């Protein structure tokens, strides 16, 4: 783009606008949300003048969102915590009575408590983190501590997307992949309001629109991204799998699939044993006498006319057909099973239309449009590359259809299978990791699934043998005891949710209070507002946090929380450790975690303080390293027990996970000239600082696509420790791993099997090895007539969860949320615009204010997420709009399934496969409130301000210097006559 500035003559008579000599610019990474844009911060006198996007940064390329642009008001928020807080002896948890204590004392208290737990029963420490970005460090800390009771937010966030992708293609939606914005010609977005790729999606959509590519949005609500979509598909919530699989039906019916892609890169030609009711049914055929799931899957070679190892190169597998193994077992290719399943009338557009509300013609048309773009508008990139078998290929073939999906899919209890259904659609069209398709972001793709197994053993003063979280591939990998009972406090990897690869954060408090499966001693929360917007069933969660045993002790005896602000959670903690703000701390966005990579570049980044804290605060990173030293974790101490790392910065530079691999992948090696792998570089922080806070290594053109089967890429990935081998990553349309759980449910598995009926039933019903649709669990268990509406949430683009109501600028954009409802539906129900209504679910009721709109599915109501706050928290007044008029949908959502008097009553309200919290399964009824009934209900008493806090000001005139006015001369005023 040409700069307009050069064309503008500098107008005479303009003064020097502000004194820049007094200003410095520094580079760091935004953390107003998890998108992690690069920012350039202008600072004067330790005050922030301006935060702008870093134009060189791989993520945001110079742009910033509304939150990023409001960092100043986060930095100067009155809600910032200013010193460690200890609940006053004799006061109740939740009353918010604290005394300020020194860091030394706070750390001593923590050390004493934790070292006792570690020496006795480490699982009594449950350590859970919210929407953080340092899971590599906190996870490692937990495993060094020796507790498997650790997880981050993934379980209540979007594990369905992670698991759906990682068990299918080795990468995923969410933070693991992106559409090829530069080449795609047809883009379908499923259930996304904002997502983590906040600015990249916006930059990408602009590119699409500019090129005239088609943008289809599948979403019950038309706001935000859907506003600019060329086609809006107003789906009924929870039914996306029907739509996707019906499009699959149309493709299969018309034989519109990329068979070369299927044969070369997927397991669809592999032979599945078909012996219903017998052991081994539905597993791959791996040759004569080979034990279940050992050895190589077989295909039928059309040329050799024999069974061959499916993973060999240069074979000619039959994609379809039924065969008989020498031992007489019936075999079918996975593809043949798919034909059977998806050509069924259930998925015919006419029938699908009834379930998902999308017209049959539209389903058919969209499928055929995508087929046209994929097969008739193919693009090729003429770059020579080497495939997994070492064969040279002369080009990349691109089928420019791409998709992105997020919580509209994941936050349902059928989200795992729905996500897989969308991937199936992508794979049949051959649009995975190809030009114009959906691209992985390094360190993805990984082998399916990544080869880490969840930890199952805990012992005093001993690190775990493997990380707390991993990817189970069969019932043997579950974290259950010999009786089949859950080992983990959140019951992850139990029969309730066997493939819960991110844990179930939403179950921790409820389980710990019930002592089911056991009691804990200390709950340690980092960056998680569990006493408010991140819990289901908020009101009851607050009760649980204060629930006591008969002896007067709290059921959760001790709660430690790290927060930077006076959130609702602070009041419910016994020890509060005040964090720095993102502009005040060192931090890494690590390749070991979810780095900031772009599809064609491996990238990571850091935060470097740009302003000095004016309070007694310490970053959680620093606390973790300090505590690890004090508790003597092996990885943090030398032989003699002395500390290895003096600080977080020191740890980041010198820690190696394996030789040459550390938290930061850039500027490694003694001289900083090595990338991805290399010895520690003592000047690594300085190198990042000099390079504007990030590291970016572009992949070579021959490493950019088909990375699941691209030797040039896989070799690099192995060197970088992103993958364990350079073997082809075979896309798993048919998941034998999921089938192994189904077999356990059927009682046909040679290994651990559930004993309870409801577990068996769940495994049989939901562990389909092929993507499938089932009615979301809450909907199965309530009366649909009684609760006629789906109720879902959207993220506002200008608020990050609970973080931004303290932000004086952002809260002016929204300090009250409404319940949005389709106008036609509301008129039918006699509900008026802006009236107050009762919204009731099986779990409770709330009173909210309604706003009518056009662009909402008629069976759906929705609201913006996490706008409501408790009075007094977040530096807000007791009568703030957030506290009096705004509402949380969370009160209506139960952490357990709707009660029906069966064994499922005790089961988590989550996806039965992954344990993903089913926030958007909610069904409600709506009735007008009585005249005079206004204001949000329930409301909770106001929380206390922190001790010694300054009162929030009632007028704000922020400026970083005295403003330099532009003055109009009197002569001009008197002489000029305007037209």
């Amino acid at each position: 783009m040409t700069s307009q500035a050069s064309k503008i003559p500098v107008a005479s008579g303009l003064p020097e606008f502000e004194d820049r000599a007094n200003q410095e610019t520094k580079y760091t990474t935004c953390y107003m949300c998890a998108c992690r844009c690069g920012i350039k911060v202008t600072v004067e006198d330790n005050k922030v003048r301006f935060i702008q996007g870093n134009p060189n940064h791989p993520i945001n390329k110079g742009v910033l969102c509304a939150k990023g642009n409001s960092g100043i008001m986060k930095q100067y928020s009155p809600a910032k915590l200013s010193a460690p807080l200890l609940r006053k002896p004799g006061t109740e948890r939740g009353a918010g009575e604290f005394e300020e204590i020194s860091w030394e004392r706070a750390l001593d208290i923590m050390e004493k408590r934790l070292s006792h737990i570690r020496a006795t029963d480490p699982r009594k420490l449950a350590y859970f983190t919210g929407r953080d970005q340092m899971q590599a460090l906190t996870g490692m800390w937990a495993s060094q501590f020796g507790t498997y009771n650790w997880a981050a937010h993934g379980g209540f966030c979007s594990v369905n997307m992670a698991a759906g992708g990682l068990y299918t293609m080795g990468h995923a939606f969410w933070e693991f992949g992106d559409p090829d914005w530069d080449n795609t010609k047809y883009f379908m977005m499923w259930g996304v309001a904002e997502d983590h790729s906040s600015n990249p999606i916006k930059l990408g959509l602009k590119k699409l629109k500019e090129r005239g590519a088609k943008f289809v949005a599948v979403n019950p609500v038309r706001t935000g991204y859907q506003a600019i979509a060329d086609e809006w598909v107003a789906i009924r919530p929870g039914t996306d799998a029907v739509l996707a699989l019906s499009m699959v039906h149309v493709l299969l019916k018309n034989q519109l699939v990329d068979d070369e892609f299927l044969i070369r890169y997927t397991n669809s030609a592999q032979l599945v044993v078909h012996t219903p009711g017998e052991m081994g049914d539905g597993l791959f055929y791996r040759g004569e006498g080979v034990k279940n799931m050992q050895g190589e899957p077989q295909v039928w070679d059309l040329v050799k006319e024999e069974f061959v190892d499916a993973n060999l190169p240069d074979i000619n597998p039959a994609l379809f057909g039924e065969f008989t193994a020498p031992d007489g077992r019936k075999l079918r290719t996975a593809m043949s099973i798919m034909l059977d399943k998806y050509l069924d009338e259930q998925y015919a557009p006419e029938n699908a239309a009834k379930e998902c509300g999308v017209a049959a013609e539209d389903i058919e048309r969209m499928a055929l449009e995508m087929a046209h773009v994929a097969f008739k508008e193919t693009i090729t990139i003429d770059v020579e590359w080497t495939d997994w078998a070492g064969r040279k290929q002369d080009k990349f073939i691109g089928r420019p259809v791409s998709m992105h999906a997020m919580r509209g899919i994941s936050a349902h209890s059928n989200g795992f299978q729905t996500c897989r259904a969308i991937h199936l659609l992508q794979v049949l069209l051959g649009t995975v990791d190809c030009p114009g398709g959906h691209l992985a972001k390094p360190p993805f793709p990984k082998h399916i699934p990544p080869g880490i197994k969840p930890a199952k053993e805990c012992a005093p003063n001993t690190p775990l043998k493997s990380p707390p979280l991993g990817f189970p591939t069969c019932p043997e990998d579950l974290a259950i005891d010999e009786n089949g009972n859950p080992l983990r406090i959140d019951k992850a990897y139990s029969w309730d949710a066997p493939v819960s690869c991110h844990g179930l954060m939403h179950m921790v408090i409820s389980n710990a209070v019930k002592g089911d499966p056991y009691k804990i001693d200390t709950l340690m929360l980092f960056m998680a507002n569990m006493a408010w917007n991140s819990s289901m069933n908020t009101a009851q969660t607050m009760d649980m946090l204060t629930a006591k045993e008969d002896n007067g002790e709290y059921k959760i005896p001790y709660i430690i929380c790290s927060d930077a602000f006076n959130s609702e959670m602070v009041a419910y903690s016994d020890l509060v450790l005040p964090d720095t703000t993102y502009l005040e701390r060192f931090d890494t966005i690590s390749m070991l975690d979810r780095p900031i990579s772009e599809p064609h570049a491996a990238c990571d980044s850091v935060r470097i303080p740009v302003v000095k804290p004016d309070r007694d605060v310490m970053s959680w990173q620093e606390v973790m390293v300090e505590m690890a030293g004090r508790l003597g974790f092996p990885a943090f101490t030398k032989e003699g027990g002395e500390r290895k790392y003096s600080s977080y910065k020191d740890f980041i530079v010198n820690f190696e996970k394996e030789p040459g691999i550390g938290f930061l992948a850039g500027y490694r090696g003694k001289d900083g000239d090595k990338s991805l792998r290399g010895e520690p570089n003592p000047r690594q922080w300085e190198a990042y600082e000099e390079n504007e806070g990030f590291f970016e290594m572009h992949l070579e053109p021959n490493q950019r696509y088909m990375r699941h089967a691209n030797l040039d890429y896989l070799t690099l990935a192995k060197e970088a420790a992103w993958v364990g081998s350079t073997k082809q990553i075979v896309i798993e349309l048919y998941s034998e791993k999921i089938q192994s759980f189904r077999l356990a449910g059927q009682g046909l598995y040679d290994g651990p099997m559930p004993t309870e009926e409801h577990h068996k039933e769940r495994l049989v019903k939901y562990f389909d090895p092929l993507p499938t649709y089932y009615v979301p669990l809450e909907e199965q268990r309530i009366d649909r007539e009684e609760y006629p509406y789906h109720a879902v949430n959207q993220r506002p683009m200008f608020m990050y969860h609970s973080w931004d109501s303290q932000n004086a600028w952002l809260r002016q954009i929204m300090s009250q949320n409404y319940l949005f409802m389709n106008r036609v539906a509301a008129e039918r129900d006699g509900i008026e615009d802006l009236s107050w209504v009762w919204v009731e679910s099986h779990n409770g009721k709330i009173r909210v204010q309604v706003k009518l709109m056009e662009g909402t599915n008629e069976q759906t109501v929705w609201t913006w997420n996490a706008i409501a706050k408790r009075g007094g928290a977040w530096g807000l007044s007791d009568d703030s709009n957030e506290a009096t008029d705004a509402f949380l949908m969370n009160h209506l959502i139960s952490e357990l399934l709707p009660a029906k008097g069966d064994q499922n009553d005790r089961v988590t309200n989550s996806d039965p496969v992954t344990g993903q919290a089913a926030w958007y399964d909610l069904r409600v009824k709506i009735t007008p409130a009585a005249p005079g009934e206004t204001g949000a209900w329930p409301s909770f008493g106001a929380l206390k301000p922190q001790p010694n806090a300054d009162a929030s000001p009632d007028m704000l005139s922020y400026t970083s210097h005295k403003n330099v006015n532009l003055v109009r001369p009197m002569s001009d005023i008197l002489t000029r006559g305007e037209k």
Partner: protein
Amino acid sequence: MKLGLVVDLDTCVGCHGCATACKQWNTSGTIGPLSDKDPYGRDPNGAWLNRIRTYEVDDSPNSKTVNMPMSCMHCDDAACVTVCPTGASYKRSEDGIVLVDQDKCMGCNLCSWACPYGARELDPNEGTMKKCTLCVDRIYDESLPEDERKPACVLTCPTKSRVFGDFDDPNSEVSQLVRDRAGKQLMPELGYNPVNTYLPPRNKPVVEQYQPSLKATVKGWVNKVISR
């Protein structure tokens, strides 16, 4: 020169990025501070120079949602300037930017009454009128890198829905966009001749449908020899 903005309604997602970028730049800029009343209390109310409004066009279920960012249009016939009794409001003859001299404004609100576009807001603390300066203190500031000499809102817009330039220059990007995309003025009937111009949503792209061969649908699937 006639400087102003083009705003693309086809791509604006209503993120409010431009609104807060504007707020943070200008609160320490020549028009600042931009004060906020009751910032942490009930009904916070501050001065903003750029607001985003969202409309629904047509009825359910065919409605289309449109996000419309609005800041000062730097009108050719700016009545906000002519009504101002103090001379605080003025339109620069060299580039058409409409400004308010903060030292001279008496806070009578008349200019805001004269503005059809809601572009002027009184500062609750200072009592003076605030409005978009087209970031005059960025576009002319030679101490900024050349490609940053753009309005803060333009620089930050994640969908690049805002373009800054000279409408008098027929070859400028803004003039071209206005021509190519049939740019529109808002409420032209009032005769203010707003410089800022809005690009209406584009027509939907037409994508062909694959014409399935009848043969395929009738005949079953046949294995093809494809080497792995």
